[in-house]
């Protein structure tokens, strides 16, 4: 009974076990091999009696086989090629088993035949091993692969030279850095860099621009026969295009020879005194260093210390001076007359220094416009200031000459009438005994006739009036036109009317003086007639 029961249980369990054990796989295959799951597929990888053979692996992994045949790549390296595939790439470790299992830190890229040097050694695998850089369409389809890259730089790197240079980048560039192209030797180029050219930044000659929408630096097709291909001609072709006649490559400032140099081709023609100067006097730094020359003061000191500055700006010296010398000047009377102080009369003949160099220094500003600023007032204490207030000389004098005086005598209390009006001033005001004009006094006259005239009547008519002369005399002449004998004590009537004056008024001598006697002590007939 028990045997029967046991037999049935055994059979049932065997059936169950066979059902459960339909697959003899020792474990799930990795994802990439999942399609090989199932009993029918065992021999896809396993060789009966010989475990897993490399041939079976390589039958599928043709890309590896091809590289092994060509002895290229990591799998063809000495370290790897002797190993069976299964040593590194086993399976049946579950779906999530990483069958490739690349340990990036430990992977020796040198084994691949492409040594990672310089900057390459610092890059992440994915920086290079990406789909974009793979040429083969077959390999591109693979979900993940490290194959398909070429050892040509342009496989991964963009050709920034846009096919203008050879494809072998390492002729010029190192693996340490793309910039600078330290393996490049400019002396292998047609244009050898000498002296200062060797120090110039590449971009100065090899300019950058946009080409095909990308930054592009031109290294080929450059014109280099003439300096002006790169350099700007500061002389604007005045000296021709053969710069090397004067300049050397060491420096623009170093000049070969100045013997043949024609300064007139520059913007500053040497003329007058400039021709006699040594170059260094103006070209203090270097003959090639630009020298400002628009204004004289670019080189010369303003001798006049900004005296001519107007609105913050001084006029150029050339407005008055020229290159023939500073002592020469072209400041004309017309120009002077445009100033506040016009030159007229005697001023026209006055030398400049009379007014402008009163001291040691020349002075052109604030030297005064009044006469007394230059001239001495010789009338001080000699003329009452009411006739030239504030020392206004022009009240009497004109610029033509000092001795041309124009004075309105009506301003004084003494009106010039008759002969007085035609008489020279000096007849009254100048004392011939005082030789210096400056000593003349005008304020000493009192209006008294006697201050100028001599009383030939010896005081016979003198009374309390200062101008007692005018009782008889006018200003036209000395005739006693205003005298009426009838207003005297002795009226002339009868025969007296026709008698000559001298008959009665005899000339008498008193000492050394002779005069006509008009005054009698007594007016008696006998005074005249009885003698």
């Amino acid at each position, binding site marked *: 009974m028990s045997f029967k029961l046991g037999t049935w249980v055994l059979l049932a*369990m065997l059936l169950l*076990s066979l059902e*459960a054990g*339909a697959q003899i796989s020792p474990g799930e295959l990795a994802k990439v091999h999942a399609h090989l799951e199932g009993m029918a597929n065992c021999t896809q990888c396993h060789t009966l009696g010989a475990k897993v053979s490399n041939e079976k692996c390589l039958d599928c992994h043709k890309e590896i086989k091809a590289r092994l045949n060509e002895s290229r790549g990591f799998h063809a390296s000495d370290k790897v090629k002797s190993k069976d595939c299964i040593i590194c790439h086993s399976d049946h470790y579950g779906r999530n088993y990483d069958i490739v299992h690349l340990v990036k830190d430990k992977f020796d890229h040198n084994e691949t035949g492409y040594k990672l040097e310089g900057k390459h050694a610092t890059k992440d695998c994915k920086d290079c091993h990406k789909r974009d850089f793979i040429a083969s369409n077959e390999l591109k389809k693979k979900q993940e692969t490290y194959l398909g890259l070429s050892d040509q730089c342009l496989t991964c790197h963009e050709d920034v030279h846009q096919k203008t240079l050879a494809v072998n980048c390492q002729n010029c560039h190192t693996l340490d850095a793309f910039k600078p192209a330290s393996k490049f030797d400019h002396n292998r180029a047609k244009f050898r860099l000498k002296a200062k050219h060797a120090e110039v930044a590449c971009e100065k000659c090899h300019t950058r621009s946009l080409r095909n929408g990308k930054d592009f630096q031109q290294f080929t097709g450059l014109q280099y026969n003439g300096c002006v291909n790169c350099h700007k001609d500061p002389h604007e072709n005045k000296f021709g295009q053969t710069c090397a006649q004067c300049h050397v490559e060491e420096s623009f400032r170093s000049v070969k020879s100045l013997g043949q140099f024609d300064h007139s081709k520059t913007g500053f023609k040497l003329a007058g005194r400039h021709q006699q100067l040594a170059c260094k006097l103006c070209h203090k730094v270097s003959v090639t260093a630009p020298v400002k020359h628009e204004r004289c003061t670019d080189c010369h000191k303003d001798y006049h210390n900004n005296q001519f500055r107007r609105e913050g700006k001084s006029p150029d010296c050339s407005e008055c001076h020229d290159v023939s010398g500073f002592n020469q000047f072209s400041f004309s009377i017309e120009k002077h007359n445009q100033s506040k102080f016009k030159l007229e009369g005697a001023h026209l003949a006055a030398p400049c220094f009379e007014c402008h160099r009163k001291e040691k220094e020349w002075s052109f500003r604030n030297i005064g416009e009044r006469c007394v600023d230059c001239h001495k007032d010789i009338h001080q204490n000699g003329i009452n200031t009411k006739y030239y207030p504030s020392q206004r000389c022009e009240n009497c004098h004109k610029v033509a000459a000092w001795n041309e005086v124009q004075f309105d005598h009506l301003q004084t209390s003494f009106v010039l009438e008759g002969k007085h009006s035609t008489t020279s001033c000096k007849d009254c005001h100048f004392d011939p005994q005082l030789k210096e004009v400056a000593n003349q006094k005008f304020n000493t006259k009192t209006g008294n006739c006697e201050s100028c005239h001599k009383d030939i009547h010896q005081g016979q008519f003198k009374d309390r009036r200062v101008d007692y002369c005018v009782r008889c005399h006018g200003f036209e002449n000395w005739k006693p036109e205003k005298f009426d004998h009838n207003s005297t004590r002795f009226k002339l009537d009868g025969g007296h009317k026709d008698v000559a004056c001298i008959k009665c008024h005899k000339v008498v001598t008193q000492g050394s003086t002779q005069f006509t006697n008009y005054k009698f002590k007594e007016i008696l007939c006998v005074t005249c007639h009885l003698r």
Partner: protein
Amino acid sequence: MKLNNAVIHQIFITFLVLVVAVVVSILLYMGFDYYTIPLEERHFHPLNQSFRASGVVGHGLGIVGTFLIIFGVFSYMARKRLRVFSRIGILKHWLEFHIFLCTLGPFLILFHTTFKFGGIVAVSFWSMVAVFLSGIIGRYIYLQIPRSIEGQELTLLELEDQKIEMNKQLRQSVTLDESIYELTSNLSGAEGKRVRFFGRSKDERMALKRLRMELKQQHIPEIRSREIVQLFKDQLTLKSRIGRLVSMQKLFAYWHVAHLPFALIMLVVMIIHVVVALTFGYKWIF
């Protein structure tokens, strides 16, 4: 002399246990790191080459473990069933050796699997586990059936004689109240009471309590008192075994139905596994 044999036997048994413990410990110690990492990472572990199922160590464990089990199973079967071997050694010792081989073997197989239980061979493995566990249960049932020193099952009559003999011994040892002597006769037995497999019934516990009280009242020395209690307990055990005997004999018959087929399944699938492995060229060191 008899005592010496028992000591030697005990030492031998201890040695066998130690062998299992040491082998398992060594394997665990050496391979713990390897066996505990996730499956996906096993391949990259330094021990993988040797400890994987097809590695030198792993494959070896499988082969040795298999041979231990095969030998353990078939030697014991031969001793039990073939007249030629029936005279060699005591059956109990053969069982113990069978247990040793079929304990160490599965452990080696367990390490051979690298604790990866998949594919057809898993059936073999789990069958092995089932046999192993059923073996432990079987061992318990086996003990419940009183046997002669040769391991032959004793009949009910023989057991009753044994019980009477033991009661006699107890009476000679100490003079107790008659009711206590009768306790063992009255308690449980095969008289339709429920069969107990574990522990003691309430009546048995009460009887033991009464015995102890009685011994105390009579001022029996401690050592002597313990001997009497042990004698009493043996008598109780024998009594309960007699009570369970029929049930146990039935149970043991059923147990064989489970233990043997699992073993067979294990062997059959294992053979398939081995054939497949050999077919694909996995020949261990050969």
